[in-house]
């Protein structure tokens, strides 16, 4: 990675996955550009966006990979899980079918991603509460049982979108901090790999000086 105009301490790679049409692209555009598009185009392969936020005293660049939901793209998209330190598994609270397959998405994720990846289950489209098919308690319980973070959002009216991304980035940040303390003797600073520079942009620490706590 070359020098960037912006200065940041961490790059965290996060992937957005889930069935087609649940609102992944709009969650991303709401978070990175504060935009919502009623008929945004279908995502082809993988599309990409970033936003830099402050987590405690560190500047974190979230590098977010938005994937196509359709089955046919799995062979391509699974390659993008590599190096991801976070994942948002999105379903549509008004379409039970998109929730039923969350299991399959998790399996897909754990098959291809690092075991230490932080995963958040996201029930999107709360603005359509009158058409809800997935009770919040049910999804929350599922998340608890599977060790996932959980939140409900609306990309349309912005509810909880910031919170969702901030929560997962904070969680990743803490995990990295802990990891760093534990492995300070062995010089391993990355959650995802032993040598962050070789697998950039997985998750690289920009300024090694902040290792010295």
């Amino acid at each position: 990675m070359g020098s960037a105009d912006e200065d940041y301490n961490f790059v965290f790679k996060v992937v957005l996955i889930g069935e087609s049409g649940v609102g992944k692209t709009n969650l991303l555009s709401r978070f990175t550009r504060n935009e919502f598009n009623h008929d945004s185009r279908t995502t082809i392969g993988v599309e990409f966006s970033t936003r830099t936020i402050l987590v405690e005293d560190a500047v974190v660049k979230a590098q977010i990979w938005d994937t196509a939901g359709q089955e046919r793209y799995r062979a391509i998209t699974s390659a993008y899980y590599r190096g991801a330190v976070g994942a948002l598994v999105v379903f549509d609270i008004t379409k039970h079918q998109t929730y039923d397959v969350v299991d399959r998405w998790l399996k897909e994720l754990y098959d291809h991603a690092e075991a230490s990846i932080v995963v958040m289950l996201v029930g999107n489209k709360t603005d359509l509460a009158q058409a809800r098919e997935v009770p919040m308690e049910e999804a929350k319980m599922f998340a608890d049982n599977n060790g996932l973070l959980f939140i409900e959002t609306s990309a349309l009216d912005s509810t909880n979108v910031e919170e969702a991304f901030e929560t997962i980035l904070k969680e990743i940040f803490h995990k990295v901090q802990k990891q760093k303390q534990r492995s300070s003797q062995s010089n391993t600073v990355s959650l995802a790999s032993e040598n962050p520079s070789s697998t950039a942009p997985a998750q690289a620490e920009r300024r090694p000086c902040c290792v010295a706590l």
Partner: protein
Amino acid sequence: LQGYLPANVDRRESTLQRKRKEYFAFVEQYYDSRNDESHQDTYRQIHIDIPRMSPEVLRLQPKVTEIFERILFIWAIRHPASGYVQGINDLVTPFFVVFICEYIEEEEVENFDVSSLPEEVLQNIEADSYWCMSKLLDGIQDNYTFAQPGIQKKVKMLEELVSRIDEQVHRHLDQHEVKYLQFAFRWMNNLLMREVPLRCTIRLWDTYQSEPEGFSHFHLYVCAAFLVRWRKEILEEKDFQELLIFLQNLPTVHWGNEDISVLLAEAYRLKFAFADAPNHYKK
């Protein structure tokens, strides 16, 4: 040129009639099955994708939605090896718009109420669009079968080609860990439709149709020319994320025929320089 009409002028009208009849026989035979269990997934996917097509101009009209759903569903059912894949929905539009333009002025397309055309005309447009899209896809079907081998192969070839025509750009991308698949996948999957405005797509495809293996082969040279077209911007950008964001959102909004002509000229030049000389400039 699409290989839809016979070369013999006398036979054209009768072929057209026959093909149109054949299409509507497919519709009658298959379309009712869209809610069957085995086809439900296909239909659901098409149904949610139609409002999300590129470009946006026509798709919100209920009549257009209906026509596109039928075309795509019938194609998917008749081509089980690939079935419907996102992106194919985009590929109907250029044909549809060109056929519509036979009845109206080009400038009117954006505000045109499609349902104001007579039913018979619309049926002909629907059937003709179906067959043209079918012909197009016949040549690139391995782009859409399992694991999309056609696309993987072409992205590899693009990488190879660029490494030979502009080593500096190639090295720059490589150095910043930008993978060709990360931006060129969509170039292949949607035949550059997502990267340039519709009027440019139509102009580009016009050339593809008159070029042997235009969509499957010449497209590769166009992609290479297209990438190198941005060499200055690419070389100035020295950050992985900024590079990728740039490559996924190339500034072509104001592109017109002139830009496409330049692009095509460059693509032809590359083709002549490299197609028959696989080792030319090779290290």
